């Protein structure tokens, strides 16, 4: 594409999947680990027949904070480097991933039975899975 070629002239050669992955790998691993940790916490509460507590919502907020940082890094890389990432698809996943946990957490917190924790568990796993999909979209060159 014309625009892409022009950008390549300005910004140097396109970064391949490896270079792209090195930028984003630590963030993706961190998000994945945090999601698994939050899911495990929720699963423990399911087993203990307890509802979501406020401290778990703070845990979700930590995940959200990392997601925002990830979005900023991704925006910076997409803006400055030539790439073959489908931007519409990528940002679609970013937005969906950002809103799943807050909405689900609010929905879960209003329920005061064990099902509350099941909702948080599902939301955390979904956020982690969306991170995996984002990773796939990043990797495609």
């Amino acid at each position, binding site marked *: 594409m014309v625009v892409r070629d022009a950008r390549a002239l300005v910004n140097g050669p396109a970064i391949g999947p490896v270079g792209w992955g090195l930028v984003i790998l630590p963030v993706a691993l961190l998000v994945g680990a945090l999601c698994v940790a939050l899911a495990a916490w929720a699963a423990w509460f399911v087993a203990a*027949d*307890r*509802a979501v*507590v406020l401290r778990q919502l703070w845990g979700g907020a930590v995940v959200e904070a990392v997601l925002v940082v990830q979005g900023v890094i991704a925006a910076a890389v997409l803006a400055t480097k030539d790439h073959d990432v489908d931007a*519409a*698809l990528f940002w*679609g*996943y970013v*937005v*969906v991933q950002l*809103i*799943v946990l807050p*909405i*689900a957490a609010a*929905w*879960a917190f209003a*329920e*005061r*039975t*064990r*099902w*509350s924790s*099941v*909702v948080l568990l*599902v*939301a955390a796993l*979904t956020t982690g899975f969306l991170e995996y999909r984002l990773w796939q979209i990043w990797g495609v060159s």
Partner: protein
Amino acid sequence: MTKVAPTRPTGSGPGRLLVAVYGILALAATARGIYQVATKLSDAPVAYLLSLFSGVVYILATIALATDRRRLAWVTVLVELVGVLVVGTLSVVDVGEFPDETVWSGFGAGYGYIPLVLPFLGLLWLWRTGRRAPDDVAAADSTDDDGAATVG
């Protein structure tokens, strides 16, 4: 408003989880539909518009189940059931007309068959919460807080 028999709210208890899964699917299907319609509608207009339609159905079903709008919930869950069965069958039988581009293609294989299982769970849940045996009502009156763990 005269209610003949009290019905359990569709959005609490196990319904919390049902609504959550519906909500996630609503997000996934709608985001996918918007992306497809916005970027490549001319490639397969029927499939992509169907994709967007499925997203709208899931959104309505989610809202209906969450806010205890039973009639809307019945209609949307039934539409969803018909959708996944018809589109699923068409996608398997006739590949040309329906490429694998909607949530319902291949009976929801791309989404862990959740789109196939969900409408059955939705109908079961609507049926179970909608009817209450007389002795069940009496039992519920005596023990009102059955199983509701209160954890702050």
